[in-house]
């Protein structure tokens, strides 16, 4: 008992260890090395953000959509669809970008005209063939058809209706040897026009700065040349703000309601039903008369055989 108390007394006499000033190496270990680690992490974060941002630029999507590799094309298409179909205001960076919309409309126009040429060629091969499975030849065009379907839907998602003239051209095309493919393409074009009309209504709700910027870019494009692109920009201005149309007024403007009047006479019943719905979004001087005609529709229809 006595020896234990003696030990405790000896320990208490020793007190705390002596205080020494920190060495330079100690300070480096404490601050500099963690600082370096944080610096590297921040640099990596900034670099990855930059790379991701770069990957989401319109030019990146356009490059991917132009790729000869179908996988790359579809990856780009899928990534772009994730953006265009979202309602968040952050997506306005793409959806209110008229140059991007015009670039996609150009690609749709090109892809559509190329597909028509291919359809003629394949149609000729089928007509000359005696093979019982000759209709399977249409399968060769599947990738190109899908590409046109995709672009058709994509141009309808923008606030600037620059793709309307190309969609109208698709809707008016009624003489393809690929009857089924052409009809499905027309259905998709009509749905895209309906979406476009809805987005056109949404133009009034986007922030003023983006609205003015969109109109300024369209005016610039409309005044740039007399090419198709200028006509598409004029068409968009006609529907967004008629007062913003440059000199030359209606030159190159495609009126959607005139196309709808034509599709109201289509042989396909579903296309006529969609036409009636489209007039909710696209008005025109013949809209009322056309709707009254559709209100007495007798239901004539085309019969599409399953051919491929």
């Amino acid at each position, binding site marked *: 008992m006595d020896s234990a108390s003696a030990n405790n007394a000896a320990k208490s006499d020793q007190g705390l260890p002596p205080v020494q000033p920190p060495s330079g190496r100690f300070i480096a270990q404490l601050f500099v090395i963690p600082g370096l680690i944080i610096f590297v992490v921040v640099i990596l974060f900034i670099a990855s953000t930059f790379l991701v941002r770069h990957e989401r630029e319109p030019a990146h999507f356009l490059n991917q959509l132009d790729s000869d590799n179908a996988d790359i094309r579809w990856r780009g298409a899928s990534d772009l669809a994730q953006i265009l179909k979202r309602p968040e205001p952050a997506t306005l960076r793409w959806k209110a970008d008229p140059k991007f919309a015009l670039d996609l409309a150009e690609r749709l126009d090109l892809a559509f005209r190329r597909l028509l040429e291919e359809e003629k060629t394949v149609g000729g091969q089928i007509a000359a063939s005696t093979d019982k499975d000759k209709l399977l030849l249409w399968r060769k065009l599947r990738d190109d058809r899908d590409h046109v379907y995709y672009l058709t839907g994509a141009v309808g998602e923008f606030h600037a209706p620059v793709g309307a003239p190309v969609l109208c051209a698709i809707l008016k095309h009624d003489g393809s040897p690929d009857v089924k493919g052409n009809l499905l393409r027309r259905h998709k074009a009509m749905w895209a026009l309906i979406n476009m009309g809805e987005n056109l209504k949404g133009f009034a709700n986007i922030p003023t700065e983006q609205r003015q910027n969109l109109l300024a870019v369209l005016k610039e494009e409309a005044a740039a040349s007399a090419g198709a692109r200028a006509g598409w920009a004029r068409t968009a201005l006609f529907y967004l703000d008629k007062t913003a149309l440059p000199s030359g007024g209606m030159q190159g403007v495609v009126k959607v309601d005139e196309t709808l009047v034509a599709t109201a006479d289509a042989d396909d019943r579903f296309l006529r*039903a969609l036409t*009636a719905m489209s007039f*909710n979004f696209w*008005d025109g001087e013949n809209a009322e008369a056309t709707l009254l005609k*559709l*209100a007495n*529709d*007798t*239901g004539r229809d085309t019969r599409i055989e399953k051919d491929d």
Partner: protein
Amino acid sequence: MAQKEQGLVVRGLLLLAAIGGLVAFVLTLLFWRPYTQPPTLAGPPEYSIPAVVVPSLSGFPSAISWYSVYQLGETLPSAPGWNVRYNAATTLARRGSPSVPWHSIREMLDEKQQMRNQRVRLADGRYVYDEATARAFMISALRAIAAWHEQQKSNPKREVPTELREIYTIVDKLTHSEFDELKKQAEKAHATFFR
């Protein structure tokens, strides 16, 4: 002492079984949904037209049962092109047109007719009604009626067509519908009426 512990275990197990049973009962109450067989049809009524209308060819044409013809008319879907006519009618109504074909809108509000228009053939050969789609057409008509009335509010010379008065009666009935969405849209349309 051992007997006492054994009794405690037995009581614990019994309590556990009772709680388990109670939990099972509550979960069953929460998640059990009675399976409701979709309304089925023996077959499309148009298949039976010849047999019903002309039961025997001996006395043709006097043997035609005109009452049966009338009855069959009440069981058939709308004439082809109804989807085009419906879309045109609702679009005209939403535009506030003075020439809305109200008979089409009235037809859209006829639940039985919409069921007949939405017949679907299942993989096993049975015919059923696509009730959700049928009611979607009714809701679309109700929205169009409300939109037409909203458009007419600014028109000082507005008139309520006779056919529309009949629609008012149908909408009144639909405000008591057992289907929430249908009831809600009927009430919204009802609130816009001019009376």
